[in-house]
């Protein structure tokens, strides 16, 4: 399945977030940036080149980096700290929980290589449990931009939302979803395409996969509503519920373990508020492997083809139930 509607993005979201961070250095002259020796990968060096006195390369030591960030923030200074998702949400998770989230400190987390977007780097560098760990911690907010415009704007949302905020970014550029007029708020979502038969909710790179699937579904006579749930925590329950009440079916697709991701969250929302035929796509309790992003998504059941199939099945279930 290939898209004709979307334009290729020129830069990955990690770059767009850091571009905005470097610009933001002129807007806010206090905040500091830390990296754990992957500044040329997260692009945090762009801030460091402009503001060397406020940029700290903490070496390959993520636990110490986040504890030091907590020390800065406890003194009242906001820090953006960056690394790869696996190291942030696994190695440093205790520091983030007990010493950033528990005291509710202003540490903003730049987390690159989300999901299988770290494709060719292999499993050790693919953060596929990050949304689960970060969403579970009280006081943490979780954002996932779908494209470069969203990444720049969500930097601002992150920076201006009090307390810790985790932003999941992608290794590689995919497609442009937004133009510069798009707006983003904490707890918000954007409905990219209106539909009447099924609600597709996704975030990050899976947004373009959902848009592609919706185009293909339209060709089969199924009208899919596509929602970019860029704010995972808090999530936009109002918009998603309203859409479910309209379409009567919900499919969540995420580049993450199926367990404890947004799909589980919205499945519970549906059970509590408005039960509808529901499914969720994600990694099925398995690790992936190195390889081309598109091939991995196909093999592990996350591509637009899989979204198309799952959506078709849900709509059939809905119609069977209504018959």
């Amino acid at each position, binding site marked *: 399945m290939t898209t004709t509607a979307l334009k290729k993005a020129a830069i990955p979201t990690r770059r767009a977030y850091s571009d905005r961070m470097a610009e933001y250095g002129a807007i806010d002259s206090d905040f500091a940036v830390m990296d754990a020796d992957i500044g040329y990968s997260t692009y945090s060096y762009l801030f460091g080149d402009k503001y060397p006195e406020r940029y700290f390369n903490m070496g390959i030591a993520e636990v110490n980096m986040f504890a030091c960030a907590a*020390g800065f923030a406890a003194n009242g200074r906001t820090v953006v700290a960056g690394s790869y998702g696996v190291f942030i949400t696994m190695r440093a998770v205790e520091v983030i929980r*007990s010493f950033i989230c*528990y005291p509710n400190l202003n540490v903003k987390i730049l987390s690159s290589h989300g999901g299988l977007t770290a494709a060719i780097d292999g499993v050790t560098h693919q953060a596929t449990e990050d949304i689960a760990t970060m969403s579970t911690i009280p006081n943490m907010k979780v954002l996932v931009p779908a494209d470069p415009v969203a990444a720049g704007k969500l930097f601002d949302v992150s920076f201006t939302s009090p307390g810790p905020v985790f932003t999941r970014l992608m290794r590689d550029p995919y497609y442009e979803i937004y133009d510069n007029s798009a707006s983003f708020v904490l707890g918000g979502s954007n409905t990219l395409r209106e539909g009447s038969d099924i609600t597709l909710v996704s975030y990050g790179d899976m947004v373009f996969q959902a848009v592609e699937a919706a185009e293909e579904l339209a060709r089969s006579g199924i009208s899919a509503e596509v929602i970019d749930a860029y704010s995972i925590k808090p999530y936009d329950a109002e918009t998603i519920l309203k859409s479910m009440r309209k379409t009567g079916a919900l499919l969540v697709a995420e580049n993450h373990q199926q367990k404890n991701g947004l799909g589980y969250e919205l499945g519970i929302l549906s059970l509590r508020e408005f039960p509808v035929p529901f499914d969720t796509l994600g990694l099925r309790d398995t690790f992936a492997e190195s390889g081309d992003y598109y091939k991995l998504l196909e093999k592990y059941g996350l591509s637009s083809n899989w979204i198309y199939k799952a959506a078709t099945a849900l709509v059939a279930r809905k119609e069977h139930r209504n018959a």
Partner: protein
Amino acid sequence: MNSNTKPDPAARIQRLREIAQQVRFHVVDMVHHVQSGHIGGSLSAAEILTALYFDILNIDPDNPRWPDRDRMMMSKGHACPVLYASLALRGFFPLDELHTLRQFETRLQGHPVIKTPGVDMTTGSLGIGFSISVGMAMEAKLSGASYNVYAVLGDGELNEGVVWEAASAAQKYRLDNLVAIIDRNNLQNDGVSDTIMPMEPIDRKFEAFNWEVRRINGHDMQQVLQTLEEARDFRGKPFCIVADTVKGKGVSFMENQRSWHGSPPNDEQYRQAVSEIQGALV
């Protein structure tokens, strides 16, 4: 505040020694009262905390979040009874609040939290408080602030790898506003530190990380005070004090006993401990 006129040196030491015994009393008293808490590692740090809170630290109990105050991280957070006793005696909160240690809705949580008056940062997961102190000292440098940051660590805590990540960062950023005090009592939860995970030579390890190091008797108040004063004013490098101490110090039957790491005394042990503490100066 340390700007008060100082009494003559002998009287100053004598006063601190007496306060250290009051700190010990409150440690034993609160842990006995609530039948929970870490006594052994609190008693070993009584002189260190007393010298800090009653002489060295530039702090104001009436304004605990004063931005220019010295910072103190109790990195060995389980030994918070000695921290809470010191803070209460120093006037940060009422002494009778000590009996709420670890109890429902208390400000004196099982491990220190930032919301408690006088506590500069949440600590308790070993190694991390030290690492946070490095971040605070870096931030103070960036702000051009003149205060110092102190961190009290246990020797067992040095097992944590993050301690050495933090020690590296401290030398990289030349944090001469940072003082680490190691409460070297050679006992940790499961037994003798030298056996569980040998860390010696601790002083030479910190020297190799380009810290300025002194090794002292952590119960000799004169040495403790003099070395802290030297550390406070030292410039050019971060400063580490390895304080050789005795776990359970000041209560004969608790000294050097692993079992007093985290157990409370019964009523009879409590009476004996109090009479030993009140009858002597360490």
